[in-house]
């Protein structure tokens, strides 16, 4: 489960070449690689520049993705492809399995040690190093975060990364990757008294004094694609995370119920933080079959670390109705289009928005020169890039019908495809192929009905604890396709196809 080397690569931007901005190798692991690998299979680590060139070739970093480059794009690759694991061809031979993930315009790469070196290409599932390497990269990516474009070897964050790695994996075998605990350990002050009971490694610093406080934050996302058509069903997904920050003295246990409101379907399986000891992670139907009753709560018992952490991930796949239904009609030509958008808020959905805005981007057209619009609520403006209009619906859907409508006519300048612009044109959206995008956020509400039952929270050993619980519903992607044009879609699973 060790790593032979890791690299961070800055991606090329425009005419500026990319390069390796961070490199770390581990000689003792390398020595094991040499000892454990048969001579035919062992490939030495390349120098920084060679590694960059090899990665650039494999990923085709220097050629636009719209061009077909055989070395990168040949369909033969499907037979060997194992993303996010790659084979990198260097002067010395083929390095495998190089794990590469991209985040914030940087590539994070590492090469785990294969301990059974006689088998050239064992399946990834037999390699402990791959899961460790992958999780290492996620932590490093998290640690580094977004960087300015001119980031280089001596950027402060990368110098700090060196400290972090020296603690987290001095010899190339990660022992603790959690950024907060590593920081806690490095900064920990010498103590003179010996703890009377064993202190866990994931809580190197204990809270002393101060008020006990446990906070839960449920962030629920909804994403949907609406066709408003007889032949195509609308699709949507509802999922979320529960974050927790527990400022508690000592190393207490916390128990909490994650419940859903009445008349809501139960959550699907949960995926929980490793600090959770027991949890009803599997889907249970509870007594949802009885109308008006709620499914049984999901009980979680855990020993929280001091930092903010994701207690669990959930999905809710049985939600019957979308929060907002929509219809989008657009017709016209390259010079101008007529639009009609209707939105209807579902009953039972909380009618109080932090914001609710509909945007219509116009791809493969010239900039907007004029717009004439009428709405039943809110205002319409042209976006700063002049390639989209935005309709601010307001904080509430008014009237008993809970419906709002926008009519507009938009005029465009002639389109010159060769002209460079910041706006990225989706080449699918030509002619009447178009969509509207809805953005909204509702505080203190979840579509799944999921909430933290404050009464159920128990802290052991018991202390007087302040509890807060916050929840919100946010759109991650909400598209409404023009019913008069073509739309992107997926093939729905046929009912009872296989029986």
């Amino acid at each position: 489960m060790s790593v032979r080397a890791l690299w961070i690569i800055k991606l090329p931007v425009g005419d500026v070449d990319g390069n390796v901005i961070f490199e770390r190798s581990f000689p003792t692991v390398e020595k094991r690689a040499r000892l454990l690998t048969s001579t035919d299979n062992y490939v030495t680590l390349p120098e920084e520049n060679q590694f960059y060139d090899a990665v650039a070739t494999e990923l085709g970093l220097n050629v636009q993705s719209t061009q077909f480059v055989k070395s990168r794009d040949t369909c033969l690759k499907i037979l060997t492809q194992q993303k996010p694991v790659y084979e990198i061809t260097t002067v010395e031979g083929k390095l495998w399995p190089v794990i590469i993930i991209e985040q914030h315009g940087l590539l994070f790469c590492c090469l785990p040690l294969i301990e059974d070196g006689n088998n050239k290409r064992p399946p990834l599932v037999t390699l402990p190093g791959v899961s460790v390497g992958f999780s290492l990269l996620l932590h490093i990516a998290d640690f580094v975060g977004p960087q300015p474009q001119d980031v280089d070897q001596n950027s402060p964050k990368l110098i700090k990364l060196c400290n972090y790695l020296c603690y987290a994996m001095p010899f190339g075998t990660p022992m603790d990757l959690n950024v907060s605990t590593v920081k806690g350990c490095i900064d920990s002050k010498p103590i003179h008294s010996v703890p009377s009971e064993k202190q866990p490694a994931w809580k190197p610093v204990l809270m002393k004094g101060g008020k006990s406080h446990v906070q839960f934050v449920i962030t629920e996302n909804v994403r949907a694609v609406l066709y408003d058509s007889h032949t195509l069903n609308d699709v949507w997904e509802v999922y979320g995370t529960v974050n927790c920050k527990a400022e508690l003295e000592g190393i207490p246990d916390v128990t909490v119920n994650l419940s859903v409101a009445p008349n809501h379907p139960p959550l699907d399986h949960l995926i929980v933080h490793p600090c959770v000891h027991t949890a009803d992670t599997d889907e249970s139907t509870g007594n949802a079959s009885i109308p008006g009753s709620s499914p049984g709560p999901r009980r979680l018992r855990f020993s929280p670390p001091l930092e903010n952490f994701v207690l669990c991930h959930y999905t809710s796949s049985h939600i019957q109705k979308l929060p907002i239904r929509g219809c989008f009609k657009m017709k016209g030509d390259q010079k101008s289009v007529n639009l009609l958008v209707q939105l209807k808020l579902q009953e039972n959905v909380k009618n109080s928005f932090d914001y609710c805005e509909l945007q219509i981007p116009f791809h493969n057209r010239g900039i907007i020169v004029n717009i004439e619009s009428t709405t039943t609520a809110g205002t319409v403006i042209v976006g700063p890039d002049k390639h989209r209009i935005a309709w601010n619906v307001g904080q509430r859907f008014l009237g008993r019908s809970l419906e709002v409508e926008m009519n507009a006519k938009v005029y465009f300048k002639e389109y010159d495809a060769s002209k460079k612009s910041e706006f990225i044109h989706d080449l699918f959206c030509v002619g009447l192929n178009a969509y509207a995008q809805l953005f909204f956020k509702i505080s203190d509400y979840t579509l799944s009905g999921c909430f933290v039952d404050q009464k159920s929270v128990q802290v052991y050993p018991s202390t007087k604890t302040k509890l807060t619980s916050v929840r919100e519903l946010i759109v991650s992607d909400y598209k409404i396709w023009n019913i008069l044009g073509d739309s992107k879609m997926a093939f729905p699973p046929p009912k009872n196809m296989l029986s």
Partner: protein
Amino acid sequence: MAAIGQQQQQSQWLEDVAKFRRSPQTFLAKSDTDEEGFVLDILQALFSENIGEHVKLQLLCILQEKSDILLKDNTSVEQTIGSLRNVFEETDHDSIYKNHILVTMTTILIQHEQLEQQPKIFIDFMDVLLNLMSKINNGLNRNVRRIACECLKEIEIMYPGILSRKLEHIYAMCQLENTFIGQSYMALFVTVLKNSLERLIQTNGDLHDNELSELLSTRREPLKPIILPDNFTTELFSMKEKTHRRVSSEKLASNVDTKELKRALSFVMESSSLMTSQCLFYVMLQLIECVSWVDDLSPATFKSLFLHCASTTTLPLFYLVFLLKAKFCDQLFSASDGDFILRRLIMYANTPTLQHSYQLLCYEWLLHFPQSQVDDCQDVCIPSNLDDRHTDAFFPTVFNSIDATLAKLNILSLCLQPGSQSGLAEATLMGCLVSLHKSVNYGVTGPVAVALYKALLNYYEKHQNTALVEDIYKFILGIIVEQPKFAAQTIDFVESVRKIHPESSLPVDLLRALLEHTVSNKMSTILDNLQHYLLILERVAEEKEIKQNVLLIFLQRLLVSSDLNIDERWSLGNSLLRICRNVLHHRDTDLVFTELGDVLYILMTNYNDIDIRDRARFYYALLTNLSSQKLTSILTSFSPVAMATNQTLTSLVTGSANFQTASPVRQLDDTILQLTRAEKKLNSVSVTLPNGTESGQILEEYLKITQSKGFSPAVVVTYNISFKEGSSIPKDDKLYAMVLHVQTCSNYAQMKDQEIVFLDNHDSADSTESCTQVTLEFHPHEPVPATFDVSVLFSNESGETCTTSLTPLQLSFEDLFLPLPDIDGYSRQQLFNDVWNFIHSQQGNSDSACAESVCSLQLSQEMIATTITQKLTPFIVNSSTQDTVNMYQVGIILPPSSHLLMKILPSSETAVISIVTDNLRILPLVNRYLHQLERRHP
């Protein structure tokens, strides 16, 4: 001011570190220092108080990572370790930097095999580590103790068993340590436990019943010091051994009592909640091994762990479930557990809040889902318990990324079996492509289109003998009809199918249909997408099985079409010619004679570009004058390999088509010959002064001659050429007509190839006096050491011409030494004195390359005398005795024309060497050479 200087120093170091990492060799060459010097600089910086710890940490990392380059021998390792230990002791607070000194020392000691080379240093260091870690529950130096455990663990991993006799001590410390670093003790403990158990299993002979319990419960020796066993050999704690034995099939003898082991195991399991995910993963990896070796231990120990891990977000912990499944399978998991794991895996793959690559890994694992103990997950297959209930999860949705879509389609194509009467599976599989196909249909190039073709190839690979192939065929045709711009990708698809299934008829069928589509298309459509259609035709023309007449008639039509865009006539003409060439090459020309002739004729008479007309005429000539067979061989022989044969085009055209082409030169992969240095002849340099040179002008004349261009004395070296041991050439073979080529670099004049009539494997089997010899003359332009690549070309017994490379030749700095010349009527002593004085007088001049230098060597009088006799006798101009001390004057010419004069004055402890040279660029080389002499007398 001081602060600014400090800042500058730090950023200079950071810059140097970055440069060194980019390329150590270039950095050292450019910064005019060598490895040793750089290490000294680093160590000095570590002692310095002006440099921040963050910079020092970077320097330590360089020492840790690049010690194989930086530390050349045991002495430098010893010195570096000594200095690092001092730095460690002088650093008083418990910091990352201080801890990393220990890590660096451990790495260097392991990397340079000091346990074998200098066991004392290694053992001393281990004692330091044991001493540090033994102070359990000390709250003042937790991080140092943690690192000491890590270092010991790394040593134990590299030398399995070295800490076996300390197992009980470590076990006890684990139980007592209460601070947050307890997990490091635990990790060390399980590492040593696992290695000890493994050694017990591997021990030949009977184990007594209490062997294991005693290891865990009795102290056999104190914690310190480390005592190497009397029978210590390098193999004793060697890692390599392990992989050769198939330990997994071996078990601990059943008579051995495992009570203590069980107790230790449950202790570790109980402590698992105290560990971080990564440490827990490491510990469990070791424990899983242990349990699999001992029949008395039940895998059920891991049941609660399994339930915990199967729901966790942390990837390595979730992965543990698969590891347990693969290792223990039915012993630990029921069928319903298997279903549970599978359900969880599918769910992970579909949870949007997890990272995208995380999901991709889950799909990858699903394809190698461990099913039974014997199964090594090698082949791709879907788990047997994956059924209809799960299939819905593999339908790509609008929310999936391209990679996730591909991964899902891959699994779906394994779940669905085409071939049923209803054709439902085919329809579903093709239907699922819609998410990718939509954009392609609108001509959107890029990743989506690439993915679509990949998915199609994957379908084909999985279901090549089913009705699905017909669907794929129609689908691809449909793409080209709608969007000819995907011609290149379609051709790539055709070639990929051909590559994986050469027998398949799909490529020909597809190309034939594409040809039909092209020739029957409206000319205006063709002209709009001409380059794409020509690409298709070019590929079609390669196929022997497709009749080309239609294609050629179409080309004629195209050529006479008035709408042909002549702006790009050269590239267009090239495309057309490539098609013609492919037809010429791959077809029997009798069948296409008229049509091809017509096309070429139109091109050579009417085409608007002279280059195209010329080449068309050439092809036309070939077509009308040569048989198909000859044509094919001519066009084939354009490949570079065939160009190397001496067959001329004329002989091809006039000779018989049955003429067998000579085989190309064969490149031998292994080196079969070697050059061994026999002797270096000390070539004397001769300088003849013009007649009547007056004594006052001798020096002037001498310098004039030696500085002239024509003056180029050679370094002559004779080599034995012999067969390398174990070479593949049979014993009685001879090699004929050998040509030895030495590749020189820019600092040396080119060398003539050496010719050897034949080489007998009998006489030249070893590098002895009976060997064939070659004498090489090196003419440097600049006196610098160099390495020369050598290759040899020869004919073997069967008449084949072969070529192979030899081990490169090295020419060191001292190889370039030549003695001062003898000049009539002018002794070498006089020459020495005159040149010395001349250089001395010139060295102040800014435009002269003359320089003086002094160097002192730590060599006693006797040592210097032996060294000089051994190394420099031919160059001694004068040795005089002054107060019982021998003084030497050494005069050397370095070709082409540099002088190196030295006066060596030994004293009891050191020797002082005054140096003058008229080429100051060689001073670093001289310096290195002299210090080498010193090192030979440690």
